[in-house]
């Protein structure tokens, strides 16, 4: 059932149904970032499910505490990986957030800014581009550094997260079709993303090069857009569905075998698009693959060059928990001559980015991030690799704060480097 | 002297044959002039009721090997002997458990289970040692390293309380969390809480192969480390080190017993021969060492049992050898038995010896018990050392289990 069209009653009925999958064993607790930080049952998946069941059964009202927990959750879905009885908490969370929005239980600047950004900015490519033009100019003129002391605390923190915005020429959209190199192995589409297209254009270009090197013709549909994940996570199923439909149409026309995504968050959302908008998205959802999973399954063309570095791979939550992809990126990295994959203590824990969580829940986000950074600091790699734009930004900011020497990159950039410059 | 009417009253409750009046036998300065020999658990309960009603007390006696461990009795008492509570009454080879009555001698119980491939995993010294006595004293020998300690081997107990109530705890199964684990409390309680009538024991399978080694040394350096290394071999069942001190000289003897499957024992044997400079020995080598643990201290001697962390065995041993005549070490268990000789009956010397034992125990991160001492030397002292913050608990537990103070009176830790 399309959550956007569900009534409140229907949503609560669905929440109740899903809560019944939970046998209350507690195996999810240690995997939950907010439980690890607080030790509070109510801030654990099991507690949140119990709470939601309590509301669904009318034992407690949909009160402030429920709303707080609905948004304190990072939505990392580590609990889903841990759950023996198959509770799908991610979707329960989205339903409950939609209900919190309906009940208008959230307020404050964050709610207003978020609402504006998600509805009026992110879905609109041109507006985003304008914003990034402006930010790039500000950064080039170093106005940001001058202004930094004058900014309110929240904006200062936001600023710390902001990566260097590439110059305009690097933010040009890639060609609509990139031909395969060598023996042609297939035709795939690439999701370039919304913010990622502006801030991580180089990752998109690296992805295109690596796919081409591996014999894939890549289509980059012009009329694609934001995947809607942030909206779904933020309790706005209407916009999420609308955006998902746009991409279903765009990629449907492109006639591709697979839709390759290099952003774990987008990939996880797109794979579940049929749950939002129903059967019309089934074929689309079935084609979505994370770039690492896709290349690993296809069989990677061995890179010719070397990349000498000790690399820690860090799992994006929405790849390892959301899509169940853990080995593929590691397999790819292991095939790079010279690269040494180093384990670290907390690879599958959330980094605290979680969409815009690092803005709305600064303290918790930092606590969650610190745990990961302590693990990374102990491993002391040359490079940290992770395949999601939010995580890249968060880990970069964190690495700078912890004064780690490691660079933080997308795994595809390492592959791209190992293939060497285009001949 | 026990009043005539008390004896008659007890005899009436138990039957004449269960009461023996005899010439006084000394127990830590107390003359004990009668022994009760109840024939079954019901009789144990009746005996306790009668003893209590007569205003007397009882000291439970199994094989009599560890009666010397305890403080001075603080009231008139009779012996309550478990010897008629004898026999293995249930044994299921497919389960590896048996039920033995308290007065069953270890050797007798072992003879029953051994033909079926099992052994009674108790290893306390003393030919007359009984199942009940070993449990009540939590007595160990060197093989506790391989077998485990009584606390880990007792599955269930039947216990007659001072009130005459008969109770049981635990059960016959090998895994059990049904209610409080009172087994642990009775094990090592030296008969101060109740009288053990019988016990369910976890048995150990007989090893396919055993191998025994001896080694010697004339210097203390490295002895602890060598013993510990041997004890940490996978098949090591017992390691004992006897040190005799003669002035600056000392004579060190090792006995090492391996037990397990043949290939592993053979591998460990080769290792022991190479690294411990040991040679094969006859089967009784460990038992001879164990006999040293069981022997009474000399007339003017004290024996302390000290427990220490493995890493501190060596310094504690060195410290003890500075003052003791002989020390027996079970390195895998972290136990040292140290003999001290007194020149004469002098309380000052005893004070000093207790302080020395306490210091050594502290250095080892453990505690001490004075397991053997002449009665005069126990005067005014707690042979169990100080049980520190748990003393109020000890007092309180005793009060609840034996408010009339009729069981092993005054002799347990804290003088209860």
């Amino acid at each position, binding site marked *: 059932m399309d959550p956007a069209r569900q009534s409140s009653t229907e949503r609560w009925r669905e929440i109740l149904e899903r809560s*019944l999958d939970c*046998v*209350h*064993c*507690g*195996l999810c*607790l240690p995997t939950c970032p907010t439980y690890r930080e607080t*030790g*509070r*049952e109510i801030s654990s998946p*099991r*507690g949140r499910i*119990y*709470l939601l069941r309590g509301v669904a059964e009318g034992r407690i009202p949909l009160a402030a*505490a429920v709303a707080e927990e609905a948004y304190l959750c990072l939505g990392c879905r580590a609990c889903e990986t*841990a*759950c023996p*009885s*198959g509770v799908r908490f991610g979707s329960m969370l989205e339903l409950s957030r939609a209900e919190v929005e309906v009940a208008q239980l959230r307020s404050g600047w964050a709610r207003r800014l978020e609402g504006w950004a998600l509805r009026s900015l992110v879905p609109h490519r041109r507006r985003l581009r304008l914003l990034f033009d402006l930010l790039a100019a500000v950064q080039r003129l170093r106005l940001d550094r001058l202004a930094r002391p004058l900014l309110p605390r929240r904006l200062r923190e936001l600023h710390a997260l902001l990566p260097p915005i590439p110059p305009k020429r690097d933010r040009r959209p890639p060609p609509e079709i990139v031909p395969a190199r060598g023996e042609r192995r297939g035709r795939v589409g690439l999701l370039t993303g919304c913010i990622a297209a502006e801030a991580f254009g180089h990752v998109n270009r690296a992805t295109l090069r690596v796919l081409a090197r591996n014999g894939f013709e890549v289509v980059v549909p012009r009329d694609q857009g934001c995947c809607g994940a942030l909206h779904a996570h933020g309790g706005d199923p209407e916009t999420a569905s609308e955006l998902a439909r746009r991409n279903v149409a765009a990629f449907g026309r492109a006639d591709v075998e697979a839709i390759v995504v290099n952003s774990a968050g987008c990939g996880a959302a797109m794979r579940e698009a049929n749950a939002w908008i129903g059967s019309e998205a089934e074929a689309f959802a079935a084609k979505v693959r994370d770039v690492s999973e896709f290349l690993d399954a296809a069989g990677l063309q061995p890179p010719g060059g070397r990349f000498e570095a000790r690399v820690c791979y860090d799992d994006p939550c929405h790849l390892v928990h959301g899509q169940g992809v853990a080995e593929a990126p590691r397999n790819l990295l292991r095939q790079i001559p010279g690269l040494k994959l180093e384990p670290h203590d907390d690879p599958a824990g959330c980094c605290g980015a979680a969409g815009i969580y690092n803005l709305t829940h600064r303290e918790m986000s930092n606590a969650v991030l610190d745990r990961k950074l302590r693990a990374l600091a102990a491993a002391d790699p040359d490079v940290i690799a992770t395949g999601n734009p939010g995580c890249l930004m968060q880990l970069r900011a964190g690495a700078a704060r912890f004064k780690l020497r490691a660079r933080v990159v997308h795994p595809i950039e390492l592959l791209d480097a190992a293939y060497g410059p285009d001949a | 002297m026990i009043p005539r009417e008390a004896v008659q009253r007890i005899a009436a409750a138990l039957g004449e044959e269960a009461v023996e009046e005899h010439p006084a036998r000394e127990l830590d300065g107390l003359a004990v002039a009668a022994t009760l020999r109840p024939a079954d658990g019901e009789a144990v309960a009746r005996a306790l009721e009668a003893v209590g009603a007569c205003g007397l007390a009882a000291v439970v006696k199994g094989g009599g090997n560890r009666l010397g461990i305890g403080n001075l009795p603080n009231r008139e008492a009779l012996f309550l002997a478990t010897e008629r509570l004898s026999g293995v009454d249930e044994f*299921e080879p*497919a*389960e590896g458990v048996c039920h033995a009555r308290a007065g069953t001698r270890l050797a007798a119980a072992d003879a029953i289970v051994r033909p079926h491939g099992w052994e009674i995993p108790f290893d306390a010294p003393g030919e007359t040692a009984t199942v009940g006595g070993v449990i009540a004293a*939590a007595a160990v020998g060197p093989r506790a390293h391989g077998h*485990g300690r009584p606390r*880990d081997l007792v599955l269930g107990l039947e*216990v007659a309380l001072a009130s005459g109530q008969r*109770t049981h705890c635990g059960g*016959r*199964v*090998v*895994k*059990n*969390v*049904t*209610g*409080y*684990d009172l*087994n642990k*409390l009775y094990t*090592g309680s030296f008969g101060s809480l109740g009288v053990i009538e019988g016990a369910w024991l976890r048995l150990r*399978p007989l*090893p396919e192969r055993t191998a025994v080694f001896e080694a010697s040394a004339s210097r203390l350096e490295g002895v602890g480390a060598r013993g510990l290394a041997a004890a940490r071999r996978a098949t090591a069942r017992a390691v004992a080190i006897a040190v005799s001190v003669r002035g600056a000289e000392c004579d060190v003897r090792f006995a090492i017993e391996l037990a397990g*499957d043949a*290939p*592993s024992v*053979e591998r460990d044997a080769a290792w022991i021969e190479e690294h411990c400079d040991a040679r094969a020995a006859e089967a009784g080598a460990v038992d001879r060492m164990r006999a040293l643990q069981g022997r009474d201290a000399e007339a003017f001697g004290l024996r302390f049992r000290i*427990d220490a*962390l493995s*890493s501190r065995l060596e310094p504690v041993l060195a410290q003890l050898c500075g003052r003791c005549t002989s020390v027996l070490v079970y390195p895998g268990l*972290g*136990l040292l038995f140290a003999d001290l000789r007194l020149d004469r009956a002098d309380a000052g010397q005893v004070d000093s010896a207790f302080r020395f034992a306490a210091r050594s125990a502290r250095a080892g991160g*453990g505690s001490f018990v004075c397991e053997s001492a002449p009665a005069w030397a126990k005067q005014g002292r707690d042979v*169990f050392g100080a*049980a520190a913050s*748990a003393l109020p*608990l*000890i007092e309180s537990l005793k009060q*609840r*289990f034996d408010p009339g103070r009729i069981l092993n009176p005054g002799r347990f830790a*804290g003088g209860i």
Partner: protein
Amino acid sequence: MSGLIEALASVVGQDGCLSRPEELLVYECDALTLHAAKPTAVVFPRSTDDVVRIVEACRRFGTPFVPRGAGTGLSGGATANEGAVVVECSRMNRILELNAEDRYAVVEPGVVNADLSKAALPSGLFYAPDPSSQLACTIGGNVAENSGGPHTLKYGATTNHVLALELVLPSGAVVQLGSATGWTVGYDWVGAVVGSEGTLGIVTQATLRLEPIPEGVETLLGIFADVVAACRTVSGIIQSGLVPAALEVIDRRTIAAVEASVYAAGLPLDAGAVLIVELDGPAPALPAQVERVRGIAAREGATRVEVARDDAERQRFWRARKGAFGAMGRMAPDLYVHDAVVPRARLPEVIEKVCAIGDRYGLKLSNVFHAGDGNLHPNISFDRRDSDELERVIAAGAEILETCVEAGGVISGEHGIGSEKRDYMGLLFSEADLDAMKRLRTVFDPDGVCNPGKIFPTTRFCVESNPRARGYDRVPLES
């Protein structure tokens, strides 16, 4: 009541004291959802001193308290009866010392079981008790429940690995019990406190024995036509003198549930039972032991015995065992995990009776069990909203326990009595037996304020079902 909450907040801060109704709702049960009771407040101490002050505050206001770890217990041991304050130890989660040479660790109660083994790994050591919830459950809870696990067979349960404890008594006094050397002078208080289900005080520190990681491990999977043959093999192995690390049996119904779930391990659906045998120890011992187990299994009619060739295959063998819980959980909204022990030689007949009970009550019942210990775990999938089914679940549970006791067994092997089984204690213990336990209780908790309503039976039930235990009301404890 707000006075108490203020007092608690003054100890642990606002952030460390929960009292809103929504927050309390989620603490109304542990992993046994059938028994629920809402606490007055939930507090998060960070130190022994905090615990002392919490206990003192509770005493001042006459409110009982209950320690809680991760809430993974299956007997309602952490349920806050009588409006107790939950003392949640999850923030006391430091490993204070890890002494590789002397092979022990000193930990706070909130340390997660698996984290300790992980921390000990570089030293070549591990913490042996491995309850199925070991990724989540905490040492404090393990100590309270004397938790076991598959490897209890060889290594023993929690009680065999606790060397010393720091305990805050219900009076607020702090006592140190036991010693890192493993030897105690006086009573074995550590032995008495382990498994006392949080009724004797709050453990604030535990010193635990670590074991050397075994040199080698071999895992076998035996396929049997029926559960009786699997159990006979277990008896044969025990009788042969082998001490495997684990002996686990999965019955036909569980195989069907597992193979229909995401945990499918490729087990043959027509098998009556599978037996997992794990052998560990010195490497030279293992080949011969593997052959002996094969021989015994063949003699008892195994249709096939596989030996794991590598770690991946070992994981596959265990997947079915470990996934059983989840697989059963997917069959219905609720899952009742029973726990009882029988003499291991009586397993075959008892299993048959247990299945017959499930059938008679029309329940979805299956068995996975620690066969080497005789520790049964009949799992019943049900829906608690169906009151008729719920009644049948309870009635069947009672019959299962009676059956086990008749066979010479006991009513809990590793989950504890808690709220769940206190009214069945009379099946096993006489008035005098329970009285002895109460004497111990009153030494520590004379007023019955620490985790009330656990272990000891209530009068009502005893009178109805077991005249032997008449008169055992919970209060007053002090006689």
